[in-house]
């Protein structure tokens, strides 16, 4: 286990390092002087010189890279071009909205998808199984950003049941929850399909195993056999799927945040790209990827914890 952990952590560190390198090169690949690009064409000579000094732009590139890494490690991601506030503080303000959205979206998808897949596998070819099958293909095929737009149209614009934009008044939990429903629905919908289908497939496999037959033969309650024995094993590939799919989740979160004007990380990145606010782009993309790598790492460790075969294979 320790060996596995070390190896897995090392791999994640390498990937993070690559991401930092790419992000850092971002500014240096574009032709022109980074200070002029960051401050815009109308900046004064003086301002450019000050900016260059502050950002260590007069140093050789490799020193700049090391400085950036050093700062990033201590949590300093530079300053916002427009407001001059630390990027880290801005990201911290926004990240809770994204985490809440991802959590809520994944949460309802799991609550619905996993039992659905289970039930479909327990009674294969029943009407429930057929409905689940069609439903999963349908929800997987529909792009999440379209779900966002249509949900906005139906529930917010036409029916006016739910608020359309923003994240709710700060401090008012009820209001914030109301604002969470539509985006969470939109990003979770295709996951209901993924999860139901994945759980169904692995459940079908596990239900055919000998030890399940033995458990049944011993007269255990069907519910205990299904949830206590079969699902525990069948859930493993699903955990991997959730971990791997987190990148897709981040993508759909970006769309949902933009469509519902929710002030999360995705909206922050998008606005910064539009305004060509590079320190924010750099920092926020780094945090988003870091978050993603962390989730994948966590799901891998969870799998290794559950399944000794995985531990030995890496």
């Amino acid at each position, binding site marked *: 286990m320790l060996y596995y952990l070390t190896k897995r952590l090392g791999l994640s560190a390498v990937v993070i390092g690559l991401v930092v390198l790419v992000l850092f090169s971002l500014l240096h690949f*574009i032709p022109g002087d980074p200070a002029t690009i960051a401050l815009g064409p109308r900046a004064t000579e003086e301002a450019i010189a000050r900016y260059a000094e502050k950002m260590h732009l007069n140093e050789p590139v490799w020193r700049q890279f090391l400085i950036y890494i050093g700062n990033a490690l201590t949590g300093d991601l530079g300053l916002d071009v427009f407001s001059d506030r630390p990027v880290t503080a801005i990201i911290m303000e926004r990240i809770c909205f994204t985490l809440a959205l991802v959590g809520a979206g994944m949460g309802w998808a799991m609550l619905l998808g996993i039992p659905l897949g289970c039930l479909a596998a327990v009674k294969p070819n029943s009407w429930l199984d057929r409905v689940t099958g069609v439903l999963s293909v349908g929800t*997987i095929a529909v792009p999440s950003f379209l779900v966002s*737009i249509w949900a906005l149209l139906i529930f917010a*614009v036409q029916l006016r049941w739910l608020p359309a934009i923003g994240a709710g008044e700060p401090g008012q939990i009820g209001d914030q929850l109301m604002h969470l429903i539509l985006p969470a629905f939109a990003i979770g919908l295709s996951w209901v399909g993924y999860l139901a289908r994945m759980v169904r497939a692995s459940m079908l496999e596990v239900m055919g195993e000998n030890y399940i037959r033995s458990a049944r033969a011993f007269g255990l309650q069907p519910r205990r056999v299904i949830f206590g024995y079969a699902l525990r094993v069948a859930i493993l590939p699903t955990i991997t799927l959730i971990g791997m799919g987190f990148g*897709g989740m981040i993508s759909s979160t970006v*769309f949902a945040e933009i469509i519902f004007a929710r002030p999360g990380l995705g909206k922050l990145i998008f606005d910064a*790209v539009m305004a060509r606010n590079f320190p924010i782009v750099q920092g926020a993309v780094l945090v988003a990827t870091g978050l*993603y790598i962390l989730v994948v790492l966590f799901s891998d460790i969870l799998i290794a914890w559950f399944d000794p075969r995985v531990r030995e294979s890496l």
Partner: protein
Amino acid sequence: MSENRSEPVTGIPAVDASGLPDHVTETEIRESAARERREKLRSFLTNWQGLTGLILVTAFFASAIFASWLAPYDPNALDVPARLSGPTLDHLAGTDQLGRDTLSRILYGGRVALKIAAIGVSVALTIGLTLGMIAGFGPRWLDSLLLLIFDTVRSFPTIVLALATVALTGPSLTVVLAIVIITSIPQYARVARTATLTLRNTDFILAERSLGASMTRTLLHHVMPNVVGPLLILAAMDVPVVVTVEAGLSFLGLGVTPPTASWGTILNEGYLVIRDAPWMVIAGGIPLILTTLGFTFLGEALRDIFDPRMGKGR
């Protein structure tokens, strides 16, 4: 060559090179192969998912190719007096803010989607196939290196990568295409690699090698024909992803540049006037859903028939 890398087989059935029983003649083999083909065709035609998929996909190709004949108006022709008109006999899907006919724009938007899908998928498939075969056939260190790269690329949240790139280059179709290609190479490569690994030590490949065939010849003439099948199925399943990424990026204003019509830009323009002209986001979304559903249905039906072991289990 006795090195044996065990790997879960997800690709094509292993090639059985063992001799046939003496009493089986060649005609009998041909007949049974033909019977099997007919069987597969019949099971495809009686599969409602596959048939629906085929119809939708055909409609997608036809409407994109014949867009200039089918479209009632020039997609960029302005008709300001009729702006934001709802669905009428003149404009079946209404008009946008500049009075352009939405139906014509949808038809022309299909061309963009088709172009991206065709180029993106075929280039990604070719590169993925090549890299995958090299990884499966080459030395171990190369295999590990390529795997690491595939995992890193695949794990990167697509939209975040796209946002970061567009921040530098500005919106363009080429960037969308490049992102689509880079992010979908790994899945082709992985499947090709697994299939190649299982072929690597089969008798007919070993025989070919011992006759002195070069690696290029072995790969091109003997490995590739056995590997390419599952990749084609994967390609059908990849089209929805590609089309969605294009529409999504264009929706964000990061893909095709105005006034070119794309399903994403139609949705974007519709989103801006969602309160006054809800039919635009409805009309813009329907072709997107039909296309993704069509390719998903088709891909799944093909997979279930030709390659039951791939994907969802059974």
